[in-house]
């Protein structure tokens, strides 16, 4: 028991590093992803294709490979610390994952609302900032949290470049104490805990979106279509975990 407690205390700094890594990756990834989402909705074909290519590359590469690419590849050009490498690699990966979410949310602003905004003489810029942006910020939050979960779990890959995040810390405690399993299981428990917390936030955010976007005609139809998905999530709620959705 004492060993468990001691190990937990020793794991906390590792957990903190993992959380920081996830936070900076998300902070880098979301604005990039939003920019990509705008580009994917742009009328310029060239811009759309360049963006699609970049997004497909970083969505199709395993995150570990992107991490190696940045950590070992960019070192030829600039010296990167592990933390910086993680920030760049997972920031770009997060951006690629969120781009599709932003693209879809921007495209999902009901056409009628844009027309209504035009009919009361709002300019294009005003429509983007006052109608489209709030809508996107609202509806994109739950799936973005879903991506944030993936990013957080992904920080465990930094173990592979020797970072002292949660998994790396657990592994080295195990090596020093000659008890490998317990520290790893405790680390797993901490991952489970943080993941569940984020999943719970995702559910709260989802409810908020449902409340905010209420009862438009096309919503009712969309809701009916989502019945299956909601059923799935309802079961997960028993355990406080929504499925981490991955957009193909």
């Amino acid at each position, binding site marked *: 028991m004492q060993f468990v407690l001691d190990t937990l205390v020793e794991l906390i700094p590792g957990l903190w590093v993992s959380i920081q890594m996830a936070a900076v990756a998300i902070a880098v990834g979301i604005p990039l992803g939003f920019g990509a989402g705008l580009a994917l909705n742009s009328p310029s074909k060239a811009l759309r294709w360049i963006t699609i290519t970049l997004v497909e590359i970083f969505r*199709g590469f*395993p995150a*570990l490979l992107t991490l190696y690419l940045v950590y070992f590849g960019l070192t030829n050009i600039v010296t990167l610390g592990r933390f910086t490498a993680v920030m760049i690699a997972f920031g770009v990966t997060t951006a690629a994952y969120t781009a599709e979410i932003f693209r879809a949310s921007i495209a999902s602003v009901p056409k009628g609302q844009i027309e209504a905004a035009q009919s009361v003489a709002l300019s294009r810029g005003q429509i983007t900032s006052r109608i489209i942006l709030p809508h996107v910020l609202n509806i994109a939050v739950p799936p973005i949290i879903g991506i944030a979960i993936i990013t957080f779990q992904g920080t465990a*890959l930094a*173990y*592979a470049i020797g970072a002292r995040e949660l998994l790396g810390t657990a592994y080295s405690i195990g090596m020093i104490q000659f008890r490998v399993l317990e520290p790893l299981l405790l680390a797993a428990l901490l991952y489970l805990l943080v*993941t569940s917390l984020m999943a719970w936030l995702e559910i709260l955010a989802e409810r908020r979106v449902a409340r905010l976007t209420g009862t438009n005609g096309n919503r009712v139809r969309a809701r009916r279509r989502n019945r299956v998905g909601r059923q799935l999530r309802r079961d997960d709620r028993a355990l406080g*975990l929504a499925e981490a959705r991955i957009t*193909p």
Partner: protein
Amino acid sequence: MLDPAYILEGLWITIQIWFGALIVSTVLAIPVAMLRRTKNPGARFLGALWAWIARGIPPIAWLIIIFFGLSLGIISAVPVLAAIVGLGIVNSAYLGDSIRAGLDSVPDGQREGAASVALNRWDTLFRVVLPQAVPVMLASAAAYSITLLKNTAIASIIGANELVFYAYNAVQVGADPLLSFFTIGLVYLAFTVPVGIIARWLDTRVRRGTVKVAH
């Protein structure tokens, strides 16, 4: 420089892990989905608990635990096997959802209709329910299989000699890291992009309700 022959060898191991984990996850996901579709709250809880743990822990942590932490005989000794089991566990949670979503997508009226013409359970399942449910399952399962393929890269960390393992070692002995890792990435893209296209195609067809499976 990367050697094409080695890339092919690595690819072969990657594919073994991918398909192996697909099989393991299918075997695990079917009972999990069944548990979660029963009316018994205890069984549902067990199913949900499995899914929660399977995806609440990062795939790399699963692999490290299985390979370094546990003593599961040959599984904990052979990196490829440890990767197949670990990634199979993770994917079983997602695949379980695909299966449930597929079964849930068949309206109750279909089962009632089958019952009304006195089909037995077996025929109802195989001739009425599954032909409608399978396309729905496949659409999301295909999407999850992309994630699974990308996760096979993690197996390199426990020493499975797949694509990334090979590139990593080549870089250690002097190959250009940018070029090597990028080339390997393209090999992944050669799989993820087409599978993604298929998944999206299936998904739009399923939504439109135009996929019909012969039976």
